[in-house]
């Protein structure tokens, strides 16, 4: 046994694996604990060997970025070790995620609760952005919630660092409903603003309790965005017609946000509108957002420990499925989550939600 193997064995001994709690295309998630302290953790076992090209891209990304990020509002990667042919990531154990919270109709959100979640999201995102990391897959089920109510950004399977000048990035990222127009138009040079758009969609979803821009395909997504926010003009977004995949989708008038968000305060709508500006350079940054008057106005953001949470009965099972980057039991073969563009990204969680969600507006019929 050489030194590396010895070190690995030592690390492996620190963690005990318990039962399996979820499985995705490239990983199996187990509940586990730290042997010395008994602290609950989630262990994500990456399946190696199934792929000819070696490790799955998202596993590499997740390790690469989470290893470096340590913040109250970002999920913590505690350890990495290998066992036989597999790679194991030891992650912080988190109770639930924001999607389950939004879907739980028995919970009532106060304006102050939404403010608190938004502040924590922006704080986590600001930390990523200041370290020049784009998350590129923000959506409610990637915002996990700890037992003490703290919200944490998770699933860095699509993250990357800010590209050097002239290097292209892929535009097939971010779950469709949260994807900004510049990515839908195929821009290969983009910035941290793409994450802000996603946060804007999540912000709206928290108020509406249903996805704000649920497009059925990439084309339909553009139409949905323009129908909600109006078609951008050349002054509003200079140069967008030159983007690689630009197609005219029709002219839609602007409707004031106030029409849809009737109960929101003026500050709140102001911040929302700044997150949903078409021109990425004018879109608010995470740091500016944190200094927006919305967060300082009364009511104060709810203390995290008092935020609404689903009843704990099922929470032990579902959220960890979410933890797993590619937990999409129905999809076949490897691939980055946002890559197959015609697939409904929420499928797996909807299947899990059974009868209860049938009455919820978000359950749309995509069969035709």
């Amino acid at each position, binding site marked *: 046994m050489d030194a590396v193997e010895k070190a690995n064995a030592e690390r492996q001994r620190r963690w005990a694996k318990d039962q399996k709690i979820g499985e995705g295309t490239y990983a199996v998630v187990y509940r586990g604990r730290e042997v010395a302290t008994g602290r609950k953790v989630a262990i994500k076992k990456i399946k190696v060997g199934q792929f000819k090209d070696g490790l799955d891209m998202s596993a590499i990304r997740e390790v690469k970025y989470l290893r470096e990020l340590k913040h109250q509002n970002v999920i913590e990667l505690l350890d990495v070790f290998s066992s036989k042919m597999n790679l194991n990531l030891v992650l912080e154990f988190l109770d639930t995620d924001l999607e389950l919270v939004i879907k739980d109709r028995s919970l009532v959100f106060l304006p102050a609760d939404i403010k608190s979640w938004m502040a924590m999201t922006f704080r986590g995102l600001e930390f990523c952005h200041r370290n020049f*990391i784009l998350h590129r897959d923000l959506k409610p089920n990637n915002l996990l919630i700890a037992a003490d109510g703290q919200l944490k950004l998770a699933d860095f399977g699509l993250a990357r660092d800010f590209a050097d000048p002239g290097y292209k990035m892929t535009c097939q990222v971010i779950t469709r409903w949260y994807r900004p127009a510049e990515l839908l138009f195929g821009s290969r040079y983009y910035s941290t603003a793409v994450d802000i758009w996603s946060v804007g969609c999540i912000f709206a979803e928290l108020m509406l309790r249903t996805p704000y821009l649920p497009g059925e395909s990439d084309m339909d997504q553009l139409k949905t965005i323009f129908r909600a926010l109006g078609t951008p003009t050349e002054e509003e977004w200079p140069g967008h017609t030159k983007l690689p995949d630009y197609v005219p989708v029709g002219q839609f008038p602007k409707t004031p946000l106030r029409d849809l968000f009737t*109960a929101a305060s003026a500050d709140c709508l102001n911040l929302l509108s700044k997150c949903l500006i078409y021109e990425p*350079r004018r879109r608010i940054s995470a740091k500016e957002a944190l200094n927006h008057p919305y967060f300082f106005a009364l009511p104060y953001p709810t203390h995290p420990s008092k935020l609404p949470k689903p009843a704990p009965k099922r929470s032990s099972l579902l959220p960890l499925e979410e933890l797993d980057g590619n937990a999409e039991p129905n999809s076949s073969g490897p691939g980055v989550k946002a890559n197959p563009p015609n697939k409904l990204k929420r499928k797996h969680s909807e299947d899990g939600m059974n009868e209860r969600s049938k009455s919820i507006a978000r359950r749309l019929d995509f069969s035709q």
Partner: protein
Amino acid sequence: MSNRANGWLRGTIVRKSGVSTASSTRTSTPQIQSTSTTVFGGGVKDASGRTSEYFSMEDQCPVCKSDRYLNPKLRLLVSACYHKMCESCIDRLFTLGPAPCPICGKILRKLAFTPQTFEDLGVEKEVAVRRRIAKEFNKRREDFPDLHAYNDYLEEVEDITFNLINDIDVAETEARIVQYRQENAALIELNIQREEQYAQYLKEQEDFERQEREQRAAELRRAEEEEREEREKGRREIIDKLETSDKDAIKLVARSRLEAMRRASARSTSSGNVLQSSSRLLRSRAAQSTVVPDVPHVPLQDNWYAYEDMFTLRDNYDDPASEAVRRDREGIMRAGGYRVEQAWERALRCAVAGLEIMPLEGLHSTASDPAAVPGAGGDVVMASA
């Protein structure tokens, strides 16, 4: 006590106390005579959910003019247009379906008559209107960004209420209510739920207190019982000992007294402990659920940007690598939001971050406590990829 002629009311009204004719003939002052639980709406309920019906000796039906003197069983009900009439008139006029009110001509239905609670029908109406308004206009102080907005809202509610009570611009006011309802449907629902939650919480609290009281009473009873038994036993023991032993009688009595006292004091301290701990538990739980204060927003909770002055970002650099991006004839990088300035900033930050850290000191403290690294604050700057 219910009237046989008014069978249609009988099923829905439970008289709690009958009308005593003997006492009501003696006095002619208005008084609340009967308390009934009604199933249909109307009437003002007291805390226990019962309606106290207004009742006086001067009652006279304005329609048929029969009065309490001739008909002691007279019962007046109030119509939706706030006119009184007796049960037999209602029966006569409205059994065959909706018909106009004999006083004002408004179309009325038999089931829409409600018992009278107040002597003044104006008050009756006001209470009904206010109750209706309060059901939907249920916003709270915390739903508003500032006190001014809340006051404006309260004023508007009062305005609407006043209009409805005094029949001013009724159509326009109703339209305002409908508009408000549409705009605030979610919030209204939420506030109703909050109200229910609060009521539920109060009920739980009450139940808990009652249980605790009962428990305490049972404890006390048991303790008393025990004490009595013990006293009995002690006395028997003394007698036994006095019979069998040949020691000094006074000494024996004194010793057994001492023992009894010690036992009693032990008992009282243990029961005291039980009571105290359960009440403390209750208090701490209540404190936990309600008294974690919300704190004002703090944008960033570290000192990252305190090191902003370590470098200045210039407008332009001689940077051949980014030449193509800066020229960007097509404007595609601009439209996608890419900024070369961000790349420059990253390069500069990577260059200056950690400049203040002494190499050995840095190595040492990261091993033990990463937060102790000055300037880094536990944050790690990405190395260039």
